[in-house]
């Protein structure tokens, strides 16, 4: 009964110069990050937006190319480009086959690691998190060997199913991505679980709640913000998919150079048509922003009360 967390907090008396002191200290703490953020995030983004309003014009067929103001003409091209929209439907499908499993497993792993039901916590936590130490590019190379009939150590699977063919290649890439990121998401949820005051869990135990009940009624509601966060990161990560499919392109003819939106941007810029690539990037960023914001809004009431 006495195990409830202490809720009383001492409110410090407001100092007369508190507001000014706060402002000066805040500027000091924020300045280094904001300077770097401006130089390496805001300026390039601004530059991309600026570039997207130009287009290349040539005098005659083989004339010298030069940039002229194009207004929204590049955006017109983006919206009429079926390859770009096709790449978006690809990542939408990818999201559906990858993310529910990835986050579901991450939550189950985190809950098990946090419960007294599981032994050898350290081993399991490290083992499940270990793939995160493998860069996406390298994970894709490795799984590429494992999936290829010529190099696979398990021929009975790779021979029977065409894991790199048009029907299954998306599942194969999804399993690479899930392999790398499930442990990462597990850790985010796990640290949220660690932040639950032990008094709350003790109180529930004293009241006779079992581990499942504690997980369902206390832990999961408590980690909902972390789940929302991992959800947002999964949306962003899926829309930005590049490394894994780019590597799979070298081993599977089912992955085109415009398989994902980021690959469309990259291949367009290396043609090179930088202005069109910039317009693609801007549209992609806006779509990412809109989706993440919508997701946050829909889940916000549950996540942040």
């Amino acid at each position, binding site marked *: 009964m006495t195990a409830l967390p202490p809720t009383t*907090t001492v409110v410090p008396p407001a100092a007369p110069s508190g507001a000014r002191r706060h402002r000066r200290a805040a500027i000091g703490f924020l300045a280094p990050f904001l300077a770097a953020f401006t130089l*390496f995030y805001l300026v*390039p983004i601004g530059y991309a937006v600026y570039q997207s309003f130009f287009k290349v014009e040539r005098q005659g067929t083989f004339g010298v190319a030069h940039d002229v103001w194009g207004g929204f003409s590049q955006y017109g091209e983006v919206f009429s480009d079926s390859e770009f929209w096709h790449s978006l439907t690809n990542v939408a499908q990818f999201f559906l086959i990858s993310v529910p499993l990835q986050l579901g497993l991450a939550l189950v792993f985190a809950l098990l690691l946090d419960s007294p039901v599981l032994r050898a916590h350290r081993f399991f936590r490290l083992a499940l998190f270990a793939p995160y130490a493998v860069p996406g590019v*390298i994970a894709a190379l490795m799984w590429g060997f494992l999936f290829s009939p010529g190099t696979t150590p398990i021929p009975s699977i790779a021979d029977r199913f065409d894991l790199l063919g048009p029907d299954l290649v998306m599942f194969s890439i999804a399993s690479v991505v899930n392999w790398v990121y499930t442990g*990462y998401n597990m850790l985010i949820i796990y640290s949220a679980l660690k932040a639950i005051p032990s008094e709350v869990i003790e109180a529930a135990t004293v009241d*006779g709640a079992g581990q499942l009940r504690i997980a369902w009624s206390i832990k999961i509601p408590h980690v909902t913000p972390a789940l929302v966060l991992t959800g947002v990161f999964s949306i962003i990560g899926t829309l930005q998919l590049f490394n894994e499919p780019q590597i799979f392109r070298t081993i599977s003819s089912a992955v085109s150079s415009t398989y994902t939106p980021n690959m469309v941007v990259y291949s367009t810029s290396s043609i090179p048509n930088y202005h069109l690539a910039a317009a693609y990037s801007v549209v992609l960023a806006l779509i990412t922003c809109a989706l993440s914001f919508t997701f946050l809004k829909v889940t916000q009431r549950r996540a942040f009360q």
Partner: protein
Amino acid sequence: MKSTSTIDRTRLRDRPVSVLAATLFMLACTAYFLLPLWWMVVASSTTRGGLTDTSLWFHGQFELWTNIKNVVTYQDHIYVRWVLNSIVYATLGATIGTLFAAMAGYGLAKYVFPGREVVFNVILAGVLVPATALALPLFLLFSKLDLTDTFWAVLLPSIVSPFGVYLARIYAAASVPDELLESARLDGAGEFRAFFTISTRLMAPALVTIFLFQFVTIWNNYLLPLVMLQNTKLYPVTLGLATWNSQKAIAGNLQLYVVVGALLSIVPLMIAFLALQRFWQSGLGEGGVKS
């Protein structure tokens, strides 16, 4: 008396069956997560250049050490260079990035000032920006400054971690008690002194987490060096291995070198995780208010 017996019964009820089920489930999942890592060790020990005869257990001669020696010495030790580059990029970038992110997150958590939420939301929006949308304009801007194909072209953009700011803000708000800061102020400590002597210690698990994640992000980065670098001597190990992989049709042993090189390249990160794990195990600031 009644409540203690309830605990005992709960514990007894929870244990035997669920312990077994949970452990079996975790073992099955762990097998899947460790299988490719294990395969890398086995495949790296084969003698065959083309990896056409791999399995999940060692067979034939055990050639791991020879293979490692070959990879390390290939093309005038370029592989060692790549690993060192990755270590420098990731260590420097993550250290500066963690410091900046921790300060910014702490500033946002502990000080009230006009425009705070606007600044925070702009930073958070930075997480949403596609990698290509940053890498390509950065390349154009850096080429105007003659900075492409340099060490700085990869390092400088890596020091920004919007997600780190987010994490630092949440953690600072939860783990650094205002009462403690107030008493530090009463004792005459300045804001920065309070941050560096008291708050960073309470935020240690978050700082390690930010460092680790930023380190991994930089270590894993492929697109930015791909866009920025021409000089193979500046490559990080990811770009180097991807380059070898794209040349594997030309040179027979490269396929094996990719696997051995990949295995070697993940060792430093594994060591970092093992060395730092005790820091992200439990919240060090938990007892801060009570004592």
